[in-house]
């Protein structure tokens, strides 16, 4: 009952809204509301900015998710290895970005990425490379945001991986060592297969999170320069809350929902195929 009221009802209301042209005129007087059928969806598919936002989001998911998983797995392996020292300290240090406020760290990152006075360009220059206008150049703004998002979020997955790693029984490694497996072989044949379910969980969660990219471009670039960092959710926010085209914004939300649903199903399907083969 509670779920029905607080989950399904708003979703249904949003779905119904996506077939209307609810805007500020309708807010003033409901008589100005028109039922437009699928027109919002048709218009959405004809809006170049939507495709651009979709491209940006897929770019972000395509590059960001593998990067994030690789970074968190790497960090987890390092923290779990017997050679590691000061483990609690590093665990806290690597997890810290996840629990800090996004807006606060975004300000720090904007300084790091600054063209003239940023630390990152300073590093590039000392390597003999030309400085990059990270947030001002349409080609570099997305990579800069991916970098920032991966740094901000990888600690969360790291903790999940760490728990997964610690649940692998030590006997498996012992048996592998007796068989003469090198540490690379141990990683490939013991660690990764045992982690497979965790990897699936993490990739589904991360993918779902990365599809909803919003806060990073909102605080770092406001979608600019030249709308090169507009994501689908950012596009929805602007349509819905900046311009109050709530009907159109609801249509965007549903397209994004369907897309995420399909991609998650695909992931689960691939995972099941692997399991049976």
């Amino acid at each position, binding site marked *: 009952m509670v779920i029905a009221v607080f989950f399904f009802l708003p979703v249904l209301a949003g779905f119904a809204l996506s077939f209307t042209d609810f805007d500020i*005129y309708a807010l003033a007087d409901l008589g100005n509301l028109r039922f437009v059928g699928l027109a919002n969806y048709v218009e959405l598919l004809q809006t170049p900015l939507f495709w651009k936002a979709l491209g940006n989001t897929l770019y972000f998911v395509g590059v960001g998710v593998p990067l994030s998983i690789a970074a968190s797995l790497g960090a987890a392996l390092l923290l779990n290895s017997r050679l590691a020292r000061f483990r609690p300290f590093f665990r806290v240090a690597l997890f810290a970005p996840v629990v800090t406020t996004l807006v606060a760290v975004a300000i720090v990152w904007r300084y790091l990425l*600054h*063209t*003239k006075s940023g630390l990152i360009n300073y590093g590039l220059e000392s390597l003999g490379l030309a400085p990059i*206008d990270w*947030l*001002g150049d349409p080609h570099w703004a997305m990579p800069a945001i991916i970098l920032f998002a991966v740094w901000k979020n990888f600690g969360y997955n790291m903790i999940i991986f760490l728990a997964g790693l610690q649940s692998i029984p030590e006997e498996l490694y012992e048996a592998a060592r007796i068989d003469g497996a090198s540490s690379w072989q141990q990683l490939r044949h013991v660690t990764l297969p045992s982690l497979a379910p965790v990897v699936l969980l993490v990739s589904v969660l991360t993918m779902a999170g990365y599809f909803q990219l919003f806060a990073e471009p909102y605080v770092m670039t406001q979608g600019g320069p*030249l709308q090169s960092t507009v994501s689908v959710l950012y596009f929805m926010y602007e349509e819905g809350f900046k311009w109050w085209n709530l009907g159109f914004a609801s249509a965007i939300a549903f397209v994004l929902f369907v897309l995420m649903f399909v991609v998650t199903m695909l992931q689960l399907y691939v995972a099941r195929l692997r399991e049976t083969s």
Partner: protein
Amino acid sequence: MRIILTLVVAWIVAGCQEPPGNPTVVQFWAMGREGEVVRELIPDFERAHPGIRAEVQQLPWSAAHQKLLTAFAGDALPDVAQLGNTWLPEFAALHALDPVEPSVVDASDYFPGIWQTNVVDQTAYGVPWYVDTRLLFYRSDLLAAAGHERPPTTWGEWTDMLRAIKRRGGPHRYGALLPLNEYEPLLALALQQEAPLLRDGDTRGNFRSEDFKRALRFYRDMFDNGFAPATNANQISNVWDEFARGSFTFYITGPWSIGEFKRRLPASLQASWMTAPLPGPAGPSYSVAGGSSLVVFSDSPRKKAAWQLVQYLSQREVQLRFHTLTGNLPPRRSAWNDERLRSDVHARAFRDQLERVKPASKVPEWERIATDMQLVVEHMVQGSGLTIDEAAAEIDRRADRILEKRRWLLARKEQP
């Protein structure tokens, strides 16, 4: 048990009822620096009106528009608010504003262009609180070094000066700074033309008119000739440093820059910068009529007290105090006759310009149209290969789409 409960409820309800004689509390929402500073003006108001208390809530500028609309949707608007004057038509379309009674203020004392921004369909819905227009800030020493003793009054003169400055300077010396993420400089040039920006009762874009294209061409030439850098304001870390370094001689900006320039430029440069009215195609011409207005919301149960607050904040003396506290420019001509403003050399050009300001189109969709105009032009300048004609047609196409609902509403009104 039930009796005790009833008694407790009754007691609480009784406690909530205000005993007679309590002051009327007027809720007032104001933005940014204004919201901070206006608190200092409130004690005098409360002393003059013993029955009224004013409570100021400060909103950040970046979230204010959204917050006001959300409050409207949720029936949570305050009694009085500061409203950016380009937002006013939107709230008027929502029927959220109480019309201004002629007795509240003397409309004839206000700069006409500024007063007009508050009028929708012949009804005034707000009282201008402070004005904001854009004009030239320039480095008089650099201009003199390029061989010109006074600022430009026409586009032709301006182009000559920019060319002379470019001839002197190296690759990183520009004549002017026109940030690509601000639509106001281009809008000011467009308002200097005859043709309105929207046509057919403000239901279609008129950006394909020869007049708009003339303004657009002049704007684009600034970048094509290398007079202005094709950057947006976020990329320039510190405008004042760059201005002090001489990276650009002209900068189109608003009154808040007077204070900033006084504070941030080194003492050695304080005598070398000045303001001038915006040059037009053939002599001094129009600029944008911006600023904020004070409005009373139509759902307020305390309208009388609310208008008294607006009236108080519109008094000449209070406006001058507000000017001293914020640097915001007063919208009443009589306030400008005061010695404090007349002796301010940097404000003088504003007085001149304020007689020539024009409001932008007064439709709720205007802000969005202007934003799209700026996006198309940004693409054009940063080299997407759009010609002037294509860019103008694209802005028209976008404006027409945005105005679709407005066309439908007007068509429905005509055939009852």
